């Protein structure tokens, strides 16, 4: 029982941070569309994406109860390993200067430039294209949030704390976005992705092991140890492949 309670805060924090990154990316696209074409197509596309997302959750959510726990832990553990280590690898390469940092301001500029180019070519279809852009952004980033919530919370009955962390992150980003009307370029995205990659990879090792019947020393507290090990190894990997800043930008 104590072990499970020990998971509440790490699960909530991981879901919050991971969802924060996804929500910032979705907000950038929605804002770009809204500024170029207005809030109506941007809002309608985003709302349609949200409805499809809600439909998917309503269909898939109850199915989780019918999957045997060990199988569920194993499957989400493997998916978390693939998902988390992909994030962590990219964050390490960005921190080391091997690939350029993700820039929300640049993503916003690219999106608005693409929409303006589409407007120049085909004015009458633009509302439709604008709505599709926000629909796709909401659906894809939303699916990532849903996966994160299920993956972090599904293995040990922690869906409520995971959902709370994700909902709080999405509401916070939406509120700040509505107030500032600018992409949240000052969010330290790579630091967040590094931290989230470490946490998701640690959860991935833990759940996969649980699914295989591994009796981890320290039970749920083993996740904290795995996170510390992943953090140390990732830090060492950054130092190992670090490049000068000018090389990464070229």
């Amino acid at each position, binding site marked *: 029982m104590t072990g499970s309670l020990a998971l509440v805060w790490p699960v909530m924090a991981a879901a919050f941070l991971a969802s924060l990154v996804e929500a910032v990316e979705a907000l950038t696209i929605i804002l770009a569309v809204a500024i170029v074409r207005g809030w109506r197509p941007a809002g309608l596309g985003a709302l349609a994406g949200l409805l499809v997302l809600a439909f998917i959750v309503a269909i898939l959510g109850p199915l989780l109860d019918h999957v045997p726990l060990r199988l569920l832990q194993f499957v989400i553990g493997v998916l978390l390993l693939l998902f988390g280590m*992909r994030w962590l690898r990219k964050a390490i390469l960005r921190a080391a200067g091997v690939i350029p940092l993700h820039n929300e301001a640049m993503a916003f500029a690219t999106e608005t430039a693409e929409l303006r180019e589409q407007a120049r070519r085909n004015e009458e279809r633009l509302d439709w294209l604008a709505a599709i852009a926000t629909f796709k952004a909401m659906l894809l980033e939303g699916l990532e949030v849903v996966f994160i919530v299920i993956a972090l919370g599904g293995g040990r009955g922690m869906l409520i704390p995971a959902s709370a962390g994700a909902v709080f992150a999405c509401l916070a980003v939406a509120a700040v976005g509505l107030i500032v009307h600018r992409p949240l370029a000052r969010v330290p995205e790579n630091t967040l992705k590094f931290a989230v990659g470490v946490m998701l990879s640690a959860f991935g090792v833990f759940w996969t092991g649980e699914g295989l019947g591994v009796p981890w020393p320290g039970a749920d507290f083993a996740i904290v140890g795995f996170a510390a*090990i992943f953090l140390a190894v990732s830090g060492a*990997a950054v130092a190992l492949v670090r490049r000068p800043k000018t090389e990464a930008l070229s």
Partner: protein
Amino acid sequence: MTASTNVLRELAGLFVDDGALALTIMAVVIVAGLVAILIPDAPLAAGAILLVGCLAALVWSVIKAGQC
């Protein structure tokens, strides 16, 4: 059709970025699973293989990308 293919491709991209890393992770999971089945008296061995294998896969993938 193209839109749904794009969405599916992007969904797959959530889990697979560097194909070699994804394959290595799957290989580590399979080896850990086999050890868990074949040596049930030492279940921690599967856990150790899983943890060390994933860390090694990550470092190897990062070094490989760093050399490109």
